[in-house]
Structures are given as structure tokens and as C-alpha cells.
């Protein structure tokens, strides 16, 4: 009796667990840098509708996802926020040749200081008080680039004690959005999202743009499907959607 119950429970459970049930539909596991959430959700929705391939999304800082891939994470495609990490994975024989899918920009953003709109980002930083949120400058390209901008503009010294660090640009956004840090550096795509539109952003004209590259790991469960998605991401139609979200 009880063993019958257990097996029924198991069957029910297995059918609810994604990936374990014997679904015939293709599923792609995408690991993406956090800044690309908005466009990726729109892109994958369209892709699933037209190609019948479902996708599972996993987000994190590029550094974290890179380390996970090196240790055999089962991702079918990796969308990094930089050029360096996919190139490294390629060199190490973990990934196929990388491809560029977007070029992003860093902005200074605030939900608190809305009336300083006419000033430039340096004036905003020097004329305000409170913490300044920035993403982990080692693992998140959206933290590395503003750090370099702060260094080259000579502001770093004065700001050092005000900096607080988010693990990814997603956490950095939360720190600023919640008002815990009144200012911070995020991706332009985040500033243009519905949540981001509730604040104000200042472009950082001196900063480098961020080339975002991706790659298909050799361990991908269905490489052809991964390559199809790669082709779609770099194609005209997907690029139009990507540009709409603040990338070039």
C-alpha cells in the first residue's frame, strides 16, 4: 500500500520537475549577464513562439557564469557582458568561436536625485552625498568600466569611501532603486526599463562602450539548436529588438 503511494507520489513529482520528465520539446539553457535580462526575455519569448524551442534563463555576473562554465555547468549558450571571457573560454577549448551580440553603455543612475538632470555625471557625483553603488569591479564588466572612468577622471580617490559593491548589475540596481544608495552605475538598458524610467540617468561620455560577446559551449546538449539561437541573436530582427533596449 505505502509503496504504491510512494510510486504514485514519485510519478507525480517527476512530471512536475522540468527537465526530468521525458518531454520531447527542445529546451535551451541560457546563461546571461544580468544587464541583458530585459531584451533577452523579449527575444526568447519571440524565439519560443516561432521556433518551438523553450528556453530556461539563468542570470549572474559574467565572472560567476564564466567560472561555472569552466566547472562544467550545463549551459547551452553563454551571453557574457564582455569580450574577454568568451574569448578565454574559446582559447581554453570550452566554447566554440565567440560572437558579438550587443554593445552596451554604462550610465550613472539615481531614483533619489532627480532634479540634477541638467548637470553632467561628474558634477552629480561631486555635488551629492551618500553611497555610490557599483558592480563588483572584478567579475562584472559593468563594474570594471565605470571604475576605469572614475580613475581616468581623477574622481576615484574622493569617491573611494562612498563606494559600495553589488555582486552583479542587478543587485547594484536594487541598491539604488531601494534608496539604500542614492546613486550608482548601471547599464543603459536598465535605465531604459520601466523600473529604470522612474529615475534619472546621466550618460558617461568618457567611458568605453561595452562589447558583449557570447559563445556556445562544446558541452551544449544540442549544439545545432544553440547555433540556431546564436544565428537568431546576431540577425537583423533580433538586433532591432536589442537596439530598442539601449544597446547598439
Amino acid at each position, binding site marked *: 500500500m505505502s509503496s504504491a503511494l510512494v510510486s504514485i507520489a514519485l510519478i507525480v513529482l517527476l512530471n512536475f520537475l522540468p527537465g526530468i520528465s521525458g518531454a520531447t520539446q527542445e529546451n535551451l539553457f541560457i546563461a546571461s549577464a544580468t544587464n541583458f535580462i530585459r531584451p533577452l526575455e523579449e527575444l526568447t519569448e519571440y524565439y519560443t513562439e516561432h521556433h518551438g524551442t523553450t528556453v530556461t534563463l539563468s542570470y549572474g555576473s559574467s565572472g560567476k557564469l564564466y*567560472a561555472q562554465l569552466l566547472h562544467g555547468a550545463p549551459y547551452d549558450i553563454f551571453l557574457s557582458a564582455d569580450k574577454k571571457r568568451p574569448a578565454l573560454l574559446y582559447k581554453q577549448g570550452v566554447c566554440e568561436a565567440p560572437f558579438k551580440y550587443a554593445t552596451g553603455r554604462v550610465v550613472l543612475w539615481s531614483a533619489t536625485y532627480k532634479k540634477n538632470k541638467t548637470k553632467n555625471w561628474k558634477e552629480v557625483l561631486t555635488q551629492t552625498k551618500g553611497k555610490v553603488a557599483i558592480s563588483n569591479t*572584478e*567579475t562584472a564588466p559593468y563594474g570594471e568600466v565605470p571604475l576605469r572612468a572614475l580613475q581616468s577622471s581623477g574622481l576615484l580617490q574622493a569617491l573611494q569611501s562612498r*563606494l*559600495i559593491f553589488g*555582486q552583479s548589475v542587478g543587485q547594484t540596481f536594487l541598491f539604488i532603486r*531601494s534608496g*539604500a544608495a542614492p546613486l550608482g552605475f548601471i547599464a543603459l538598458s536598465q535605465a531604459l526599463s520601466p523600473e529604470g524610467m522612474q529615475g534619472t540617468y546621466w550618460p558617461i561620455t568618457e567611458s568605453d562602450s561595452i562589447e558583449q560577446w557570447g559563445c556556445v559551449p562544446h558541452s551544449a546538449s544540442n549544439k545545432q539548436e544553440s547555433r540556431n539561437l546564436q544565428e537568431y541573436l546576431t540577425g537583423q530582427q533580433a538586433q532591432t529588438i536589442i537596439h530598442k533596449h539601449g544597446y547598439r
Partner: protein
Amino acid sequence: MDYTPLLLSLQLAAVTTFFLLIFAAPLAYILVFHPMRGVSFVESFVGLPLVLPPTVFGFFLLILMGPEGVIGRLHQTALGTPLIFTFGGIVIAAMLHGIPYAVQPLKTTFSKLDRRLLESAAVLGCSRTSSFFRVVLPNSLPGIASAAILCFAHTMGEFGVILMIGGSIPGETRVASIAVYEYVEAMRYKEAWQLSIAMLVVSYLILLAVNLLERKNHAA
């Protein structure tokens, strides 16, 4: 090798344990000996940190301790400085998260006390407050010690909540657990190893000292 994160963890654990016990002991005393109406509501609240995931707890704290939050504003008014992303901030977070680890062992110890002691104290004219200090506390030292150890150990291992509200400031909120996490992410495995081993050794030594002390107490 930079051992600041490890020292910071030890410092956080010590400060948190100290202040937490000051708050938890009277609370446990009231819960055990003078429960008011609706005590179940209070006790369930005390147990919340055991059930809530650190991310949920941390998310609430981020809002509450921010400049717009109740705790953040109180701190700003009282001391004139913001609370979030400071050492004081993670102490308060660790205290709130550690409440059950202090209150539960204290409650267990207090409820094992011989009630006649308290009754005699009352007959001899001791107020509730003075019997707390003169009867309950001196007779519960081993229980207080184990509560302190639990708090200390729990705070040393604190990760999720601090990840949510700390902001990883070196020397201020970047404790050992966070530093190891970041070293691993940045693939600085050498530093990750060194700090992890140091953490292991320190934790083991603390537990060893506690066990030796306990054995000595039993023998005495």
C-alpha cells in the same frame, strides 16, 4: 594574504553576540516566567529567522534599514549617520537574524531552573527585575555560555543576509564568507583557499576551546 575579512568576521561575531545576549536574556526571562497574553505571537515572531530564507530576510532589511526605512530613519535621527552599508548595519542585521539562536537555549535553561528559587526570592521581597539579575542569571551561566557560542558560530557563518545588505566594503562589511565568495567568482583560487583554510582553523579552534572548557566545568 589579506586577513582583514577574517578579523572582521570575528569582530562581527563578538559584537553581535554581546549585544544579542543583552537583549535576548530579558526576552527569554519574560517568555518563560512572565508570559503575557498573546505570547505565542511573540514566540512565532522570534522564530521567523529560522524559517525565512536569508535572501528574504536580507531583502526586507535592505528596505527597512535604507534611508527611507523605519530602522534607517531612526538611526539617522538618533546618530545623524546612515545605517545601511556600515559595520553597525551588519551587526544589527546579524542580531536580528540571530535572535532564535540566543533565545531558544536561554529559554531551555531558564525553564529548567528550580521554580522554588524564584518563589523564595519573591517571598524575600525580590522584585521581578532583581530576581532576574540575582537569581536567574547567576544560576544559568552554562546556558548563557551555550547561547553565546551558538550566536557566535551562527554569526561567523552569516552569509546570505550580509550579501543582501552589506555592499562588500573592504574592512567594513566584507566579511570572510563574502570575501571567499568573491575570490571564487573572480577565480582568485589561491586567496579563496588561504582564507577558507584560515576560517576552518579558526572555527575548529573555537569549538575545541569550548569543548575543553565544558569538560573542565563538568569535572569541577
